[in-house]
């Protein structure tokens, strides 16, 4: 008795194989697409009178990698002068742990003619996501010999410390902004010196009394900025 073997047509086998291969490719692409990393850093940004100057800027590709930009000196504006500016960002997408970390370093920093000065400004941002969750931090950020309004700051500056700058506006030191859900996404932006420039318009006094003026934001200065983010 002859054995009968049921074989599918060759074209059908090839079709099934191709279909499976396509499905695996799509699944792999989808898994990679679900996680991305982000990172950026810059030394200084001056935005006044509609003119924006930002340098040096490092940007991380969403698939990860490394970017580094540096500058020996920055004195293109009277708003900020600095030496040895380095902006760095690295990161990688991974099934186990995806991570991103960025930093910005500047030396001999002077903002608004010395209203704020520091020997070193360091901004640091780090983010990671794993099956256990996602988190970000600004550990390592700090100042060396920071002086604000002529007053030396001898202790570490707490996150989001606001300092008034009479006649100029105000500054937020060690400004930290978190984002993400802490489960599958997380991010942080650190701006070590963020000056908001303001002018007073309107207002004044007559014999009938005084009317308050309105503070209008006219520009901003950011020195030492680092950003990192992970997740979909």
């Amino acid at each position, binding site marked *: 008795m002859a054995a009968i073997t049921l074989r599918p047509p060759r074209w059908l086998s090839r079709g099934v194989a191709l279909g499976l291969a396509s499905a695996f490719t799509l699944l792999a692409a989808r898994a990679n697409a679900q996680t991305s990393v982000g990172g950026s850093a810059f030394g200084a940004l001056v935005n006044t009178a509609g003119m924006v100057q930002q340098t040096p800027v490092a940007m991380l590709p969403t698939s990860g990698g*490394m970017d580094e930009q540096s500058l020996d000196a920055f004195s293109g504006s009277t708003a900020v002068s600095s030496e040895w500016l380095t902006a760095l960002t*690295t990161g*990688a997408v991974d099934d186990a*742990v995806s991570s991103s970390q960025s930093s910005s370093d500047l030396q001999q920093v002077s903002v608004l003619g010395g209203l704020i000065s520091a020997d070193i400004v360091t901004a640091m941002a780090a983010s*990671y996501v794993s099956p256990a969750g996602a988190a970000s*931090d600004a*550990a*390592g950020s700090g100042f*060396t*010999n920071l002086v604000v309004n002529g007053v030396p700051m001898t202790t570490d500056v707490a996150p989001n410390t606001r300092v008034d700058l009479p006649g100029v506006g105000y500054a937020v030191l060690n400004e930290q902004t978190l984002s993400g859900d802490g489960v599958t996404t997380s991010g942080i932006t650190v701006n070590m010196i963020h000056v908001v420039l303001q002018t007073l318009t309107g207002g004044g006094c007559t014999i009938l009394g005084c009317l308050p003026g309105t503070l209008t934001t006219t520009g901003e200065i950011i020195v030492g900025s680092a950003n990192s983010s992970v997740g979909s």
Partner: protein
Amino acid sequence: MMQRKHLILVPGLLAAAVVAVACRDSATPARSVAPRPEFWAVSAACFRMTGGGRIDKPGANMGGAESPTGKNTPGSRDFATFGFQARPTACNSTSGSGHITWVEHSTAIFGGFVLHGDVDTFVKVASEYSGKPCGRFSGPARAKRRDTGEMVSVFFEVHHACDEGEPGVGHDHIRMLICLTTCDPEGGNAVYDRAGLLTGGNLQYHRLTGRGA
């Protein structure tokens, strides 16, 4: 009498061994722990590493010791910041690729400098504390002194970059050597040697898979 003395010593030795093992495997490495013998063994790697961050206090770190202390006081310049990506060119190859930027902020150390290095070797070593795989990579570099602006051709070796878990701060550790010629594996000819636990940032181990392996 002699027999009784031995009986008293044995529980004491057992307790000491338990304490030693507990210290060695703790999340934050203890300073007094002697390196494991296998820490010095080098083998080809099948993983890559990325990282960036900061380490502080070179005074406590010279010679490769890693200080568990935190970030410096606001008046200190004694720290370095860095970023890198490094990998073997293929699984189990000891040639490598990648880049590193290392910024020394202390003006007391060669006037402060920024180093840009290109990775040409990458191997695996074991963490001195946990036994986890760490990256060791090296290559030629250019260092620019900040006091004179002079550019110098040197060689670097990241003696180890170890990912000990998340977050990186207080756990991950790195040691950087700079040499005028190719660095001896243990840095005997190093003119710069800074090591420490991260006080900022993160080091990340990534297994090589698929086409990247």
